[in-house]
C-alpha cells in the first residue's frame, strides 16, 4: 500500500516541474495574452541581484558553522549529552545527526550516509536517521538566505522557534520510527 503511494508520488513528481514550466506560460499567453518572453526576462533579472545580495549573510553563517563543525565541539557536546539522552531513550547513534541537521545540510547528509553504511539501510538506526533528515531543513542556512536576501539583521524569535521545531522533529522521528518500524 505504502509502496504504491510512494511509487506513484515519486513518478508524478518528475512531471511537476516540466508541467509548471510549460503550463504557466501557456495559461498566460493563451488566456491573458501576456507577452511571456518579455515578462520572463524582467522577472529573471532579479535572480542576479538577490543571489549577490545574500553573499555576506551566507559567508557569515557558513563560516561560523564551519569553524564550529571542524573544531570537534560537536563531539564534546555529544559526550556531554549522551547520558541524559540514553536515560530518556533517545538513541545515541542518531544524536550527531539531530545536532548537525539545523547547522549543515551537507554535513548531515554525510552523517546519514555513514549511518546507512555502518548499520544498513534496513536498520532502525538508519531509518530514524533518514526520517530526521527528511523531516527537517538546515535552519541556519535558510535563515541566512531568507533574511539576508532582504537585509533583515534582527531575527527576533526566529532562531528559538526554529530550533524548538527541529528538536520536536528529531524527537518525533525517533518516536514514530520506534512505534511503527521497530
Amino acid at each position: 500500500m505504502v509502496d504504491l503511494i510512494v511509487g506513484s508520488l515519486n513518478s508524478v513528481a518528475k512531471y511537476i516541474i516540466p508541467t509548471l514550466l510549460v503550463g504557466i506560460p501557456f495559461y498566460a499567453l493563451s488566456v491573458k495574452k501576456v507577452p511571456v518572453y518579455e515578462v520572463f526576462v524582467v522577472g529573471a533579472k532579479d535572480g542576479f541581484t538577490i543571489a549577490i545580495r545574500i553573499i555576506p549573510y551566507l559567508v557569515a553563517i557558513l563560516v561560523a558553522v564551519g569553524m564550529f563543525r571542524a573544531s570537534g565541539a560537536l563531539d564534546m557536546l555529544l559526550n556531554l549529552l549522551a547520558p541524559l539522552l540514553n536515560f530518556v531513550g533517545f538513541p545515541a547513534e542518531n544524536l550527531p545527526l539531530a545536532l548537525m541537521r539545523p547547522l549543515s545540510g551537507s554535513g548531515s547528509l554525510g552523517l546519514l550516509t555513514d549511518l546507512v553504511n555502518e548499520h544498513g539501510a534496513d536498520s532502525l538506526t538508519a531509518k530514524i536517521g533518514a526520517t530526521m533528515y527528511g523531516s527537517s531543513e538546515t535552519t541556519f542556512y535558510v535563515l541566512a538566505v531568507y533574511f539576508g536576501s532582504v537585509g533583515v539583521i534582527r531575527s527576533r524569535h526566529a532562531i528559538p522557534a526554529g530550533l524548538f521545531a527541529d528538536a520536536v522533529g528529531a524527537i518525533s522521528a525517533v518516536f514514530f520510527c520506534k512505534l511503527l518500524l521497530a
Partner: protein
Amino acid sequence: MLNYIWFGMMAIGVAAGIYNNKIDAVTNAAIDMAKVSVEIAIGLIGIMALWLGIMKIAEASGLIRIIAKGLRPITIRLFPDVPADHPAIGSIVLNMSANILGLGNAATPLGLKAMEELQELNEQKDTATNSMVMFLAINTSSVQLILPATVVALMGASASEIFVTTILATLCSTIAAIAAVKFLEKRKRFAVAPDAPQQEKNNG
C-alpha cells in the same frame, strides 16, 4: 540573538579547536566556507532567474492572485498582518506548495520573492516581522510529502518505510514551529525594538 549565536559558534570553534588540537582544521574551515558561500550564491543565480521569470509570468497572468484567494482561510490565520490580497500571500503559498512537493530548487526562489514582498510591509527594515518569522519557521520545519531524492537513493528499498514516519515527524515539527512562533512573538524580549542602531539603519 544572532549576534551571540554567531560569535558563540566561532568562539567555541576556536576554543574547542585549540583543546582538541584541531586549530588548523578550524582555520581551513573558515577559509573554505567563505569560498563555498560565494559558490552557493553564484550557483543560485541561474535557478533563481528561471523561477523568478516564471513567477513573473504567473503574476502577470493573475494566476497568483487566484491561488492566494483560494487559500485565504489558512493564510489569514498564519499571517494576520498581511492583507489577504497582497502578492506576498501568493508567493508564500507557492513556496509552501513547492516545499510540499519536494521541489527544493523552486522553493528557494519563491520563498525569497515572498520575503521581498513581506519586506514591503515592514516598517523597520532591519527587523523581522511576525509574518517573516512565521514564514521562515514553516520553511525550516519543512512540510514535505515527497522524500528528498538523496534519501531515496541512500535508503533504497527502505525508502517507502520511512515515507509515513517522515510525514508524521515533519507534521509534528511544523505544528511545533507554528505554536512556538505564535507563543514567542508576544514575549517582551522578542518585541520589535523601537530604534535600531544607527549604522544598521541604511541597510536593506
